[in-house]
């Protein structure tokens, strides 16, 4: 007689021990510490903070260490921790024009007030493996220059003065926190942008790329891309004062898109918007392009039935924690459903055979 296998609990415990050991790796090699990760793998840390929607470099580094460098797993750890945090209140809207810019470029104008600033970018590096890094400690020191701390106006505001670009009209409404309210389609733009900002970089990159290749083509210029620190202001109602609670690094992208005009609006340029934690340019640009393509209704454009235009499709599938959870759940036992299917298929096949013999 067959006795069904027991011992799920023991198996889980053993698996966890093994996981712990393999995470540590060869014990003769020094263990990574959190500061090494948060200082030297900054872009991983940024991605985990951005898609984890929680700005805390130490926790992000811890999550990366704990997840063996699997960034989606690390994002998951951050999200699960974030959920347990109380919401004390909402900050004042951040002023990105007051950003302390490490980098600020425009692809639409050669010379702009506030200047182009390349900053620490991979853009013009030759992608050759640097074998010097195999040895220890060598790095180049950057030149120090005085920072002109005048406010840096947004490039698109100049187009705005001429009326050449569509105006963004403030809704005047407080944003609804998508992590505290259920999603109900159709969404407001604020809800859409919140979802995109924590959406999966790869997914948004692919969608943005598809619009460039002709699936609802909407040629985009990077009107402006800036990365730097912004003060986050919080108003304390009991005291009636505003205090600066953090300096947070953001990357912001404003795209300028061609627009032929429609029945509603004469020809002008339109905008897409991307804003993410950290120095995540690829993500910010992708976000701006996808945001723009989802605005077809607002501008009276044609719906071409492509993925990037479809709000419910994009937003329902851009969250990598939801996606990976559901995708990977098919590893769980499905004996019962499979058994039910087996019974049905066997029955249908038997009847098929009978019918065949008859004819």
């Amino acid at each position, binding site marked *: 007689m067959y006795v069904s296998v027991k011992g799920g609990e023991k198996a889980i415990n053993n698996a966890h021990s093994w996981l712990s050991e393999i995470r540590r790796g060869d014990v003769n090699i020094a263990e990574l510490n959190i500061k090494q990760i948060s200082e030297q793998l900054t872009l991983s840390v940024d991605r985990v903070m951005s898609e984890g929607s929680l700005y805390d470099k130490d926790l992000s580094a811890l999550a990366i260490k704990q997840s063996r460098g699997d960034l989606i797993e690390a994002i998951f750890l951050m999200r699960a921790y974030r959920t347990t945090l109380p919401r004390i209140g909402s900050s004042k809207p951040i002023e990105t024009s007051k950003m302390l810019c490490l980098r600020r470029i425009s692809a639409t104008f050669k010379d702009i007030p506030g200047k182009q600033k390349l900053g620490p970018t991979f853009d013009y590096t030759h992608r050759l493996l640097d074998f010097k890094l195999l040895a220890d400690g060598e790095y180049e020191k950057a030149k120090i220059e005085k920072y002109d701390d005048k406010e840096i106006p947004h490039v698109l505001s100049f187009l705005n003065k001429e009326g050449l670009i569509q105006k963004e009209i403030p809704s005047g409404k407080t944003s609804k926190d998508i992590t505290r309210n259920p999603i109900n389609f159709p969404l407001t733009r604020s809800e859409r942008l919140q979802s995109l900002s924590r959406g999966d970089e790869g997914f948004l990159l692919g969608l943005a790329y598809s619009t460039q290749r002709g699936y609802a083509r909407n040629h985009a210029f990077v009107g402006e891309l800036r990365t730097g620190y912004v003060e986050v202001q919080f108003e304390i109602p009991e005291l009636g004062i505003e205090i600066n609670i953090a300096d947070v690094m953001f990357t912001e992208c404003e795209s300028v898109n061609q627009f032929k005009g429609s029945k509603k609006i004469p020809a002008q340029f339109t905008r897409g918007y991307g804003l993410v934690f950290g120095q995540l340019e690829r993500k910010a640009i992708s976000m701006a392009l996808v945001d723009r393509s989802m605005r077809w209704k607002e501008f009276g454009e044609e719906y071409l039935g492509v993925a990037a235009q479809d709000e419910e499709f994009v937003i329902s599938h851009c969250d990598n924690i939801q996606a990976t*959870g559901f995708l990977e759940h098919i590893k769980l036992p499905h004996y019962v459903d499979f*058994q039910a299917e087996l019974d049905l298929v066997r029955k249908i096949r038997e009847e098929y055979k009978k019918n065949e013999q008859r004819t």
Partner: protein
Amino acid sequence: MNNVLKFKNNKTDVAAQDEIYNFAYLDENTKRMIRRALIKALCIPGYQVPFSSREMPMPYGWGTGGVQVTSSCLTTDDVIKVIDQGADDTTNAVSIRNFFKKTANIETTEKTSQASIIQTRHRIPEEKLKEKQILVYQVPIPEPLAFLEPRYQETKKMHALSEYGIMHVKLYEDITKNGHIETAYAYPVKTNDRYIMDPSPIPKFDNPKMNNNPAIQLFGAGREQRIYAIPPYTEVTSLDFEDYPFDPSKAPHKCSICGSNESFLDEIITDDDGNRSFICSDTNYCNQRMENN
């Protein structure tokens, strides 16, 4: 809140980690929000109530909806049973049971009759449920029409207008093509003669157990942010046609352990030649029968 801050200040204090969360993990405000959704769901049987699902420390698709519903219903006096595929010792059932043991420190059981809350994935226990018991289903896709129309914006209208034509056409087409309705699990039901409802991926064999059940049946879909419910003694019918009545079939075998021919069976491959054997999927039911004999 203080507990969370304590953790923030003691990032290195590993031992403190397990004690920092609220009873049954979720904070009280979240539980209240979920209970409101549950009450609404019980008032409108089969209607999908949107709720602000939280990110749980287990993956979406692994029972986060069920866990949030259970967590919101739990009191310190509860005795909980967790099953997956009908069994108490499948890995994910073990993991969820341990989660509640750890975060709520409550009594657990494998006995269906002794549990006040049963969280389940893919099965309804064979033993009849009683009044004051709660059965919590883990739901992957709460929308029964999703495989015919994936947009919530559309299906919401269909439910509002009771416009269920596409579902009946689908069932009809199955019969014309294969002589059978080709759905063996997650077989759609109508609740309280109003809403078409997804019973979660239970085998259709279990569908009749939902009808007029004395227990409260709650359904949680975490990733899809939906909760729905069947109050006790509510009519739940499986969709069918007069000339093709619903057939809650199962494998035509007996359990090779306890000999029951009334329970739903798992098929097991016993040797390299592919010989098969059948055993009860509900391990507690099977064990009880063996003890009683």
